């Protein structure tokens, strides 16, 4: 896996995780499943890479975790957004919108 692609993916992955948690707490597998569903199976991340991202976000104080029982009846670790996580998500969404809009513009004018 080329590094540039991984880096791009990493920043994006952080944002996607925050987004999936906006609706409520989820465990790791739930997050990966939701990302797949929300992108209508277009985005397929290497599932393991989710965990380093989760720990990083937790370390930065954007999400927090607690152990609980899943709907399937298993003991699992649930992640949820913190206050600063919500704020970060808003900022990330806004700058992403700006960014994709700009890219869109460029792509259109070139044609």
């Amino acid at each position, binding site marked *: 896996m080329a590094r540039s692609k991984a880096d791009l993916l990493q920043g994006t992955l952080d944002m996607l995780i925050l987004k999936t948690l906006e609706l409520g707490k989820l465990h*790791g597998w739930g997050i990966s499943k939701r990302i797949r569903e929300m992108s209508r199976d277009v985005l397929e991340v290497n*599932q393991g890479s989710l*965990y380093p991202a989760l720990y*990083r976000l937790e370390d930065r104080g954007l999400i927090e975790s607690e152990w609980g029982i899943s709907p*399937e009846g*298993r003991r*699992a670790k649930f992640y949820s957004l913190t206050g600063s996580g919500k704020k970060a998500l808003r900022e990330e969404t806004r700058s992403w919108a700006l960014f994709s809009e700009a890219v869109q513009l460029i792509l259109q004018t070139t044609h």
Partner: protein
Amino acid sequence: MEWMKRLARRIRILLTRSRVEREMDDEMRLHIEMEIEDLMRRGMSREEARRKALLRFGGVERYKEQGRDARGVRWLVDMGQDFRYAARTFRKNPGYTFVAALTLALGIGATTAIFSVVDGVLLKPLPYHDPGQLVIVSQQNSPTNRWPLSVVDYQAIEEGARSFESVSGLSRSRAVLTGGDQPERVAVGYVTAEWFNTLGLHPAEGRGFLPGEDQPGAELVAVISHAFRERQYGRDAETLGRTLVLDGQGYTVVGVLAPGVRSMAGWRAEIWPILQLQPPPRRGPFFIQAVARLRDGVSQAEAARDLAGVSERIFPLWADSFQDREARLTPFPLRDVMVGNVGGALVLLFGAVIFVLLIALANVANLSLARASTREREVALRASLGASRGRLTRQLLVESITLAALGGLVGTLLSVIALDALLSLGPQLPRIDEVRLDGRVLGFTAFITIASAVLSGLAPLIHGISSDLGAALRSGGRTGSEGRRANALRGGLVTAEFALALPLLAGAVLLFTSLERLQKVDPGFDPENLIVARASLAGNRYQDGTSVVGFWDNALPGLAEIPGVEAVGLSSAAPPNNPGMINNFDLRDRPVPPGSSQPAVPWVIVSPGYFEAMGVRLLQGRLPDITDTFDTPRVVAVSSRWAERFYPGEDVLGRQLYAGGATTNPVTVVGVVSDVKYQGLAGDDESVVYESYTQNPWRSVNLVIRGRGTSVTAAQVRSRLNALDPDVPLSNVQTAEQRLAASVDRPRYWATLVGIFAAVGLVLAAVGIYGVLSYSVSKQAREIGIRMALGAQASAVRRSVVGRGLGQAALGLGVGLAGALYLTRWLEGLLFGVSPTDPASFGLVVLLLLVVALAACYWPARRATKVDPVRVLTEE
């Protein structure tokens, strides 16, 4: 505040690390199980689902590593792990650990011991208040000729110099202490009232001196050392107010110095009596060391100008007793005067021990390097499991730090023993009392330990990072030719060791050659069966010259009657290194120009028996003897060197000279005797003037007693003297051979220490080259086996191994030779009769190192020829 929360979380994670690891395991396992179940719900078989789930998840271990990194406590956790790992590695390799740690301990221990001497003598500020402001004022008439002050000079400075906050005087002396069981000769320092204020050092008990106590007529008082008080009065006795009798004078004890103060301004004395200066009848004698404190803001140069003005002012007032107009009162930093000329030797010693440390480090680096390559496979495996390069680098660094810390710890213990030996076996060095293993020294030890860790860890590090990990994994870490870079590194280390060993060895050989030549110098007397001892007359019975002459007139024949005594004499000097008094004089028929400096030579007071006892020959004329008295004209004998220097090729008998700045009453030369060394064996000027004690009586003299086979004891001499006067102590009893040996104590000390360092360096270098060659032979067993299977002769194999080792050593010798030729110039001042680039010594050193290198190469080469081609080739 965010960072605080973060920090708290990290600490919590750190404390509960194993739980976190477990949770991470659980979490990832759960994820994969849920994925499998999900896939099975969509109709896959369990096997297929499992395969797909693992594929989708990716490398579990890799994400765990990344997950740990993401938590930010990674480095701390790893560090702990690294240390545990290092400890485990060391436990598994006790041989390697022992050798490497011991090598480091030797290097660090020796460096620490030498540094503590260098620090105590050279670097530490003097233990006085604001010591940078303290100077010693001396008379000087040429850059090399200095002497102390007279009462006239001292009082002129006290009254006339404006540069000083305070001025004080010290007269170094020895005095006879009576009143105990036996008369005793003790070191004393007579000091003026301002002494303790000038140094800013006050007695721990009682008081220092009061203004006016140094005026004639005031009560005589004294301060004593702590050691003297304990010895003389016992630990608890009341000391203040007691009376001490020194040279027949009573002194009241008013103060006791702190236990640590054994010497002041470089003079080690037990009693510090008040110095009362009588109004001077003439400019001389010169016996006062003036210690002064510069005023704030006054530089030494300004003080020198101020003092030069004082010299100018007093010169005309005393011109009839002192004609040297060029003599100037000059200030010198107290520290420089105290340290004297040992600075160069100590710096040299420190340089030598640093070389030893570097050689030790090169050896440890080589050891770790060899070990690192056998671990290539382990390293490669860890790298492929996801350990980052940084992580592996740190692991290696932690290992070398742990090793160095171990070496530093053992080294510190070794240095305690080494320092003790250095101090107790060594000669008296200035400021030696201040040498100790204190916080400063331990700080230095910590520094060199860390530097050692970095330096010895560097080589394996370079190697570990650059090696091709994939290749290492495939090759199995056992066979195959090794990386060229690793070989070059190893060869480079061997080269460096020899390059460092050569200057060390060259220094040692030069110093020993110099010592040998010094010991072969003819001292001018026969040291066999010769005893030298100091006898001193004290008390009120010897106030005038006649009584002193009377005592010796009675004592000398009595001593000659002791069975076994062949000849007895007395002398104010003690060869080979104590000239007693150095006196200036002017030749009556060839006076120096007015106002310029007169020549000065040892002026030795003797009895006629001295020449016989010493084996000094009369060459011309007669000896001064007991027929020369206060009532007859003053006569002297001179050494043949004196005659040559002042009257080359001419007759000296009957020549006259004015002694000690006098302008009347000349003395006449009546004899010439053979030369004797009085200013050290290395001293090259043997010009001496001898005068009879019957015309110039001294109260404290050296007795020289020649025995006839049977040994004469100090007790016999003492009982003869004490039969005449029970208050005459006999001290410093030594054989002339002991005196000769003691006179070269310092050169022997330097040579021995550098010699030890050179020997250690040589052994380490030999071990280094041996280790590297053995290692590469074992690594190349397969290659050698193939060559031998293809028909290579044993001798060719041996030649190639020896050739490689010698090549590395020879390169080192070349570099070392160039370095040594440059470095040994620093030895110049320490060498006698041998040039710092002496070709014979350098030839010997190069030869010795080559032989050692050859011997160290031979065994690995022999082992190479013993390689069994069948065995190594089938071993794969």
